[in-house]
């Protein structure tokens, strides 16, 4: 077992959501330490840790924080992205459900580093029961002086608002999330300007994933070098992975960055269900390219290794498929997802996903022609890089990679020759 329990260390303690058990386990000591540090020292420590955005983009958290113009005479905001909706990903849910104070402490430290007095947790509306858990924990933290005015006598004020989303995958994209938080439709904004400069209510804003912020107290307590040393040179720390699909023991597992994918499937996951053969894996949530068993055997769970086998670490949603799976069917499932979740703002994504779905439906109905595969690929070229936000790419990569690695699964659905359509003229 190579599980490395940093963020998940308290999941099995009795009553982990209670502030007293959190304090007993050393909770809020990092906040006390941080409040005695300078803002720059905190940001540098996070930079040193090589902590990268755990929501999927993998951007350096410390660098993101350093983009905020703290001298600007405007309020600054920290927003925790808890809109976890990437298919295959369910790791932020236990982080909030089982250790809310860890997140609150991370947000308090981050807010202090950015000079933000108010922060938000934007949580997907479906996680309704977790809102109560978070609000109860926030109330406890307020009563004990870890939130509110003059925290621990430092003169720093900070509070957190929990904000429910209402069912929209696109709101996981940070600028769509900000629009949603402002009470608008979840349409992404043009970047630049980036949220670090013009974000929530036009003010400097940092949006970080739940897991990213939950790692911050540990980095402050034990240092950036320590955190970095847990993982690889460029991918610091531990990472949570949601293992789903055809394994014996699906679940959320925290392992060091660089952990071999096959070990996760065979050790943590208890091997393939029913002893079947591995066919394909999506390693980072549904938006990343699918890989075959051969590539999976060479893949370690860090940003660089995933890239080297033609995919991305993404959000860490590891979807495992056995030999019985028809990749056309799983790809059909995903294009239906992206079509449903396209916000409709820009033409390439709105119309493109619609056309793709139409062609997939035609193939599924047994009416597909060999030229339809070329048409799909042409449509993909016209969506990729031309959409308003990354949802366009997210819709395209699963398709192009599936056709590339599993062409037979597509070919077998196609008609060999065209039916002669007699149209009365």
């Amino acid at each position, binding site marked *: 077992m190579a599980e490395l329990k940093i963020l998940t260390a308290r999941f099995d303690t009795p009553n982990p959501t209670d502030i007293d058990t959190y304090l007993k386990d050393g909770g809020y000591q990092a906040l006390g330490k941080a409040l005695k540090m300078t803002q720059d020292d905190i940001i540098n420590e996070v930079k040193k840790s090589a902590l990268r955005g755990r929501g999927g983009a993998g951007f350096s958290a410390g660098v993101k924080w350093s983009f905020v113009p703290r001298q600007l005479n405007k309020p600054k905001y920290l927003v925790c992205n808890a809109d976890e909706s990437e*298919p295959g990903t369910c790791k932020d849910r236990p982080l909030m459900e089982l250790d809310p104070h860890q997140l609150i402490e991370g947000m308090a430290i981050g807010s202090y580093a950015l000079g933000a007095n108010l922060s938000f947790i934007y949580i997907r509306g479906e996680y309704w029961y977790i809102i109560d858990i978070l609000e109860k924990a926030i109330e406890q933290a307020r009563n004990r002086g870890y939130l509110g005015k003059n925290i621990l006598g430092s003169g720093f004020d900070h509070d957190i*608002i929990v904000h429910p989303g209402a069912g929209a995958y696109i709101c996981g994209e940070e600028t769509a999330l900000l629009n949603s938080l*402002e009470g608008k439709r979840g349409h992404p904004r043009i970047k630049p300007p980036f949220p670090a400069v013009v974000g929530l209510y036009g003010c400097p804003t940092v949006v970080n994933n739940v897991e990213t912020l939950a790692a911050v107290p540990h980095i402050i307590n034990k240092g950036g070098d320590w955190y970095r040393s847990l993982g690889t040179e460029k991918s610091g720390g531990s990472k949570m992975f949601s293992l789903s699909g055809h394994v014996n023991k699906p679940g959320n597992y925290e392992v060091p960055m660089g952990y071999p994918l096959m070990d996760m499937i065979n050790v943590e996951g208890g091997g393939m269900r029913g002893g079947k053969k591995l066919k394909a894996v999506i390693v980072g949530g549904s938006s990343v390219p699918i890989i075959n068993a051969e590539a999976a055997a060479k893949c370690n769970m860090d940003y660089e290794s995933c890239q080297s086998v033609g995919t991305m670490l993404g959000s860490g949603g590891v979807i495992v498929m056995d030999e019985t799976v028809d990749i056309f069917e799983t790809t059909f499932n995903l294009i239906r997802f992206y079509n449903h979740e396209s916000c409709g703002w820009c033409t390439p994504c709105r119309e493109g996903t619609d056309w793709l779905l139409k062609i997939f439906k035609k193939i599924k109905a047994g009416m597909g022609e060999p030229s339809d595969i070329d048409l799909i690929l042409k449509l993909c070229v016209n969506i990729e890089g031309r959409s308003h936000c990354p949802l366009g790419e997210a819709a395209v990569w699963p398709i192009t990679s599936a056709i590339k690695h599993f062409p037979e699964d597509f070919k077998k659905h196609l008609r060999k020759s065209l039916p002669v359509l007699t149209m009365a003229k």
Partner: protein
Amino acid sequence: MFSPEIEKKIDATIAKYPHKRSALLPLIHIAQNEQGYITEEAIAYIGEKLDLVPVEVYEVATFYSMYFLEPIGKYNLQVCRTISCMLCGAYDILEHLQGKLGIKNGQVTSDGRFRLTEVECLGSCSTAPAMQINFDYHENLTPEKVDQILAKLP
């Protein structure tokens, strides 16, 4: 149009935010949870509370999949159909419910008790297949388990 208790909750929600329009999503949730769906009266009321014209509330209410503009029955059975659940039998669960209730995606049973709704990823990927009945999660489903869950509903 709401009870004094809910009115108080609405005012407290608005007061939390630095800009009151931010309270729009939470307020639509409150109205829907009270009335079962979003009524025209609720749209006008929320608009007044937040200094928005009704269409501004309406355009937001129609964007998000958790908001319903028509009655949705007592129990909204929201079955996840996305990839991880699909791999673990979500389509069987959907077929089972369609047969059992005699309704398709988006329909409500004639007695108004159940609505069947296919939804996208619920974040239950490691406990698939899953569904949400109103706000409650039910995971690691089998057709038999679904029968037991429905039989226990009051």
